[in-house]
């Protein structure tokens, strides 16, 4: 029996197994292409986000490339058709044209970014940096980290200062990439602020290099608006980079406290000197009898309890320094020279000799080691416990200057014979205290008729616009720069023996407060860029209601009218 054979035409057309497999694999090519593109994107993200994963990035990149090539190889015919077919050719042509055009756009922007011109159209050329600033920025050799501590949520002042700082710093950043800026909300991250030993409250900008940090606090304009100026920021930059430091001169030659004496528990001011230098100041002795004038580079002058008499020329030199807007820290006690006290009298502060005794606030057992009550002032800052041994009392030199004390509380200045005075009491004793006139009396006790009853002022911060004698009297003063000084009724509090207490910090706060108003670089004064809106309640009401409602209502009414006409 012959074997049964099936005629060839009756065979079912079965594809060979290899061909089926190939079709199946080809069907996978879109998936492979998609996976390849996804791998390339993931590699890109890896590289952007994780800078230390370069090996993984290369592996993922390689996988992506292999998958894409495999997809192309498997669907080679389809890819070829897409590229060389009619639609493919048009599409490729469009792609090339778009790519070329985008390339041109990139080149145009690149050239524009390299060769640009800027036109400052503000009235005072607010965003045009002065030559001094440009030179400082171009000479920068180190990176400067600028940290702004603001809390915009707390209200207008922080937001205004933040805006000003960022405007100025962005202009600085265009000159040099060495300025790095970051803003921190000090209410959210108080610890970041605590790392800096600041004498005043934020908002503050801190210019920082690995060597030193220099804070800049906003200053108030005459209109009472806080402001950061280019001068402030450039000065801080000079200090932070160590190019230039603010100078503090200590007068010498009248038995003042010795800044060269760093002896443990001595009466010298060597440790205070180190503290001042630690706050980025250059400290020098000043022999006025030789120099005849206070040097022009003096940012703060310190006269620390001179005992022997000042020569008339020396008193005149300090007087001239104050009249040109100088800043000074004066320390007086019961042994201070009369000529020097005469100078203070001229500038409105009378020193009443004696020793303050306060049974209510003192360091036991001596009631003349007074722990004064402190007031809210940048010189005091956060200090609460300070003690002044054997302090003298201060008061306005005449009755007509008494309003200068009240003016401080109101944040204003008292007009006295055409000059403006503001005297801020910093430290004072309790009502139970008195000024003991008999230094030999032990223990001290209040003698009615002889001693002066408390409360008594022991420290005072003064700002004076105009001559201290009144307008048109005495030698002329700098009309744009007020004289500013701090008088403290004690010298012992800051000597080496009192280190470790808050007392040295009081001294440093006073120097910082005075030096803050001083700049290291003279830049042309610009008119204030801020033009504040002062709105009455009615005006504010009108703006609040009319701005969002009036214009839209008019436009909708116009649309309605148009619709009615076309109806």
């Amino acid at each position, binding site marked *: 029996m012959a074997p049964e054979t099936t005629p060839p035409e009756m065979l079912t057309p079965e594809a060979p197994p290899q061909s089926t497999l190939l079709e199946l694999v080809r069907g996978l090519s879109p998936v492979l292409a998609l996976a390849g593109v996804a791998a390339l994107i993931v590699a890109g993200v890896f590289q952007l986000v994780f800078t230390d994963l370069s090996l993984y990035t290369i592996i993922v990149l390689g996988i992506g490339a292999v998958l894409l090539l495999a997809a192309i190889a498997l669907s080679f015919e389809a890819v070829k058709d897409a590229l060389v077919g009619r639609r493919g050719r048009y599409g490729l042509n469009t792609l090339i044209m778009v790519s070329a055009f985008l390339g041109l756009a990139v080149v145009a922007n690149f050239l524009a970014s390299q060769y640009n011109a800027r036109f400052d159209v503000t009235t005072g050329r607010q965003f045009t940096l002065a030559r001094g600033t440009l030179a400082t920025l171009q000479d920068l050799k180190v990176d400067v980290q600028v940290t702004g501590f603001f809390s915009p949520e707390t209200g207008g002042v922080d937001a205004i200062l933040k805006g000003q700082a960022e405007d100025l710093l962005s202009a600085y950043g265009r000159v040099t990439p060495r300025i790095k800026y970051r803003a921190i909300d000090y209410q959210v991250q108080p610890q970041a602020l605590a790392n800096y030993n600041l004498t005043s409250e934020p908002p503050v900008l801190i210019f920082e290099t690995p060597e030193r940090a220099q804070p800049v606090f906003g200053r108030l304009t005459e209109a009472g608006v806080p402001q950061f100026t280019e001068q402030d920021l450039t000065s801080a930059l000079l200090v932070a980079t160590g190019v230039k430091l603010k100078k503090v001169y200590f007068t010498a030659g009248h038995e003042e406290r010795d800044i060269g004496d760093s002896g443990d528990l001595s009466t010298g001011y060597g440790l205070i000197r180190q503290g001042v230098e630690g706050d980025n100041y250059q400290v020098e002795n000043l022999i006025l009898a030789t120099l005849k004038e206070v040097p022009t580079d003096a940012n703060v002058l310190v006269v620390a309890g001179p005992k022997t008499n000042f020569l008339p020329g020396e008193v005149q030199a300090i007087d001239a320094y104050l009249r040109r807007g100088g800043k000074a820290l004066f320390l007086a006690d019961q042994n201070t020279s009369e000529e020097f006290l005469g100078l203070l009298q001229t500038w409105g502060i009378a020193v009443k000799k004696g020793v303050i005794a306060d049974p209510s606030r003192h360091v036991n057992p001596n009631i003349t080691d007074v722990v004064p009550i402190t007031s809210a002032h940048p010189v005091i800052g956060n200090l609460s416990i300070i003690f002044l041994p054997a302090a003298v009392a201060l008061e306005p030199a005449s009755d007509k200057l008494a309003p200068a004390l009240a003016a401080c509380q109101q944040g204003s200045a008292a007009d006295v014979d055409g000059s403006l005075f503001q005297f801020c009491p910093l430290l004072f004793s309790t009502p139970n205290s008195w000024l003991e006139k008999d230094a030999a009396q032990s223990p001290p006790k209040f003698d009615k008729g002889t001693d002066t009853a408390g409360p008594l002022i022991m420290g005072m911060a003064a700002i004076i616009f105009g001559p201290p004698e009144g307008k048109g009297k005495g030698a002329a003063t700098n009309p744009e720069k007020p004289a500013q000084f701090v008088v403290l009724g004690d010298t012992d509090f800051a000597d080496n023996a009192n280190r470790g207490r808050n007392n040295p910090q009081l001294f440093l706060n006073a120097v910082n407060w005075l030096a803050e108003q001083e700049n290291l670089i003279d830049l042309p004064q610009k008119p204030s860029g801020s033009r504040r809106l002062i709105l009455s309640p009615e005006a504010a009401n009108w703006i609040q209601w009319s701005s969002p409602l009036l*214009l839209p209502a008019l436009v909708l009414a116009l649309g309605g009218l148009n619709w009615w006409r076309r109806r």
Partner: protein
Amino acid sequence: MRNTILITAKEFRSYFTSPIAYVVTAVFLALTGFFFAVSVTRPLADASMRDFVSISQFILWFIIPALTMRLFAEEQKLGTLEMLLTAPVRDIEVVLGKYLASLGVLLAMLLPTAYFVALLFWFGTPDTGPILSAYIGLVLMGAALLTLGLFASSLSSNQIIAFVVGAGIILVLLFADAVAGLPGADPPLFVQRLVAVIQYASIRTHLIDFSRGVIDTRDVIYYAVLTVVGLFLTVRSLETRRWR
């Protein structure tokens, strides 16, 4: 040129015969007016238009696609685009005509905001230079964004899709500068450069100087180039309809 003017006039009229221009303008004015009022009535407020400009860029993010979404999408849906493209007008004339019409609406929308400037002069003494530069910047930015909206409209016959695509493109360009926070500390140089390039591409970084009162040729050229790129892409997009 004549064709462009004719198309511009026709499109501009059609904006104002439908409620779209009125509604979009009213929404824009209500929102900018609200934020303007909030900014100038707070304590120690500045007599300037900076806050107005900074809020306007975000409002324009959705106002501009709303203005442009119908320009090509509607024509595609109604089938009139084929007629337009086969008429004796060049693609570029069609695109320019529609673009200039939308630019006219944008300017008409900004014109009433002169009331805010008048309020500043009424109650304060603002600096005129920064106000003028702020408006120049806003118009340049708006002009560039309109071309992106136009391009999105040329991609689809569905107005909603055109709106979403347009708003998406503008959103990406608005917030491109946010990539600055993506790389970790001390990234490699090429990553730093890439981030700088992407930041440069951000629309809003180029508006900051205008709002301050500084006109930088970089910013002017950026917006001009973006406008030309948007128009070019729109023309190419229309052209693909001939062979797709």
